[in-house]
């Protein structure tokens, strides 16, 4: 049974969080067996990009994809994660799509914006923090925030990080904007 078959069998009505432990483990093994130890597929990158820009949209400052966050996530998945962590992460992406299908009958990127919004809200403010889709979203959110705020454009143009501040003040006043660099 491949992953797609398993997901079809599990069906839209069955949340992965409700799977018995051994079934969940079997599902993880299936996912693992069908993944090369490489980077994200175009579909996965599209999902990452869509979620990333919902977490950090373009406003008067760049959004997540404007500063290459999906490429950063791909580096982490392909080159940083251990096999176990990669499996967990990719399983999390799949679980987000399963959740999307449960709610809207289509993968996350194919949903209308309003439905995406409700799926993301349910993942961001979950009832069950241990649900695979919730944990997958939390992992992705962490990578998106790190990748965004450590990017060159954001460090230089948004946070205006001073590499050599030249002094230390332990009681500097807060000013109106661009304070986020500790």
């Amino acid at each position, binding site marked *: 049974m491949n992953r797609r078959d398993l997901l079809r069998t599990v069906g839209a009505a069955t949340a992965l969080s409700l799977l018995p432990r051994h079934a969940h483990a079997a599902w993880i093994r299936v996912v693992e067996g069908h993944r090369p130890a490489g980077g994200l597929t175009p579909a996965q990158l599209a999902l990452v990009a869509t979620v990333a820009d*919902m*977490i*950090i*949209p373009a*406003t008067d*400052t760049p959004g997540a994809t404007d500063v290459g966050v999906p490429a*950063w996530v791909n*580096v*982490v998945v392909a*080159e*940083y*994660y*251990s096999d176990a962590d990669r499996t967990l992460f990719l399983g999390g992406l799949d679980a987000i799509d399963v959740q999307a299908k449960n709610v809207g009958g289509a993968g996350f990127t194919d949903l209308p914006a309003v439905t995406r919004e409700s799926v*993301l809200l349910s993942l*961001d*403010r979950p009832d069950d923090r241990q649900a695979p889709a919730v944990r997958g979203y*939390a992992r992705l*959110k*962490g990578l998106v*925030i*790190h*990748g965004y*705020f*450590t*990017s*060159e454009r954001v*460090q230089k143009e*948004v*946070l205006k*990080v001073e*590499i*050599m*501040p*030249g*002094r*230390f*003040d*332990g*009681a*500097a*006043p*807060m000013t*109106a*904007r*661009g*304070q*986020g*660099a*500790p």
Partner: protein
Amino acid sequence: VTTPGVQGPRRYDAIVVGSGISGGWAAKELCERGLSTLLLEAGGPIDAADFVEHVQPYEMHFRGWGDRAMLERDYPVQRECYACDEVGHKFFVKDSENPYTSPADAPFRWFRGRQVGGRSIMWGRQVYRWSDLDFEANAKDGHGNDWPIRYADIAPWYTHVERFIGVTGAPEGLAQLPDGSFLPPMAMTVVEEHAREKILAAFGGERVMTIGRAAILTRNHNGRLACHYCGPCERGCVTHSYFNSIGSTLPAARKTGKLTLRPHSVVAEVLYDPKRARARGVRVVDAQTMDVMEFEGRLVFLCASAIETTRLLLNSRSARFPEGLGNSSGTLGRYVMDHHYGSGASGRMPGFTDKRTFGRRPNGIYVARFRNVKTAHPDFLRGYGMQGGSGRAGWGRGSSMPGYGAAFKQALIDDLGDWNLSASGWGETLPHEDNRVTLDGAVKDKWGIPAARIEVRWRENERAMDKDMMTGVAEMLDAAGCTDVHTHASTNPPGHCIHEMGGARMSRTPKDGVLNRWNQAWDVRNLLVTDGACMASSACQNPSITYMALTARAVAHAVNEMKTGAL
């Protein structure tokens, strides 16, 4: 006389093994007293161009997280040190080339740097004088042997060292943590200032939170520039604003024209002349060519770090010293210590949200030892200091903060989140005879030198003190006005604090230790050990400045003995 294939002479007035904090000081002081000095360093040369403190996260492939797979493969031990990161790992040894062993039930972390400058390149820079509370401790409670020196013996040498290296700090007038010759203190944060006052009031002045005392310049000093507050000193400093050998002691030694620095020189053995009962010199393996050569010196200083020096003495065997050079007492390799550290607490400080920090202060706060200072604690002997700091989370809080979208993003850009305040204990470890370093009979390093076997365990006193660190910090955070105070228990094994000490301790008599009160081996008077191996107890203060002071003191005495003909 020259050795074929080797630049420079084969004989020197003095040989120093190791170019780190202690070795750099030995070289400087020997050269300045006119002795031709050969400084041997196992690692390669580095200079300011190797420093990476200004590398920004976006210039790193893993944005500061490091190449996990590579670090796990080549640096499985070293990577546990916070400074062994994506760009700073180059200052650490490859574990595969530098093996050591430990019993399965006694893990030990041995963090090491082999390069010119040794671990002075990525050290923590915190410097605290010891006091007579520390030098008298062994004699008073009977653990370990009595130190052959007291504070008065070392105090002028602390001053000598501080004036050269530059130490920032605030005088507090505490007997247990003597003030030094300080450059202006770094600022405390608004939250730390608040906490200091609240804690002083709540504990009747017994607990004093002060700004960390650090070997970092807060104004230009001895030709070096003041700190520019970029943050990660452990990755180096192009302006040499923190003390390390290559920016301070080695240039001073070089200026005399007396220094010969030989990198890539792994010292395998100290050579002993049984007729004169003196060290003759050292046997060196060239780290790159594997050539073996000998150098001779009238004085031999071992400054290779506590465990390397102990290992070198154990590897220096002869008919006279079959159990290691200078080991007629049988104490060589014993009474090895590290600080047990990391248990403490953290909390959230309400308010102060109109204030932030500016600049990245490479320093924190320090709370001077208060246990077993005036009254005896029922659960443990000796005591601990606390180190910590405060700050606001910034964008890093985003991954655990609910929300997404434009408002969420703007909050991470414009606001910094709550202030937090945290601290942990750095505790004294009692000297135990069977906390020891021996040689592993089977394992050798890349250069064929038998590896160290390290067996050090925390004992009951350390465990009891760890518990008190948690409550001790937590009650201070409560008094300071913190909310959400949570304690944390350290799981750090011995070695993790990188304050390894002992192995060739100083003593009052030849039967109790390896070294006399001048750091000379009792058995071999022209052989001196002035790194952490010489320590007879650990106190709770960061130890490096004590090695520096003991080194300068030992050089002065040895050169004096040479000049009067006693050596």
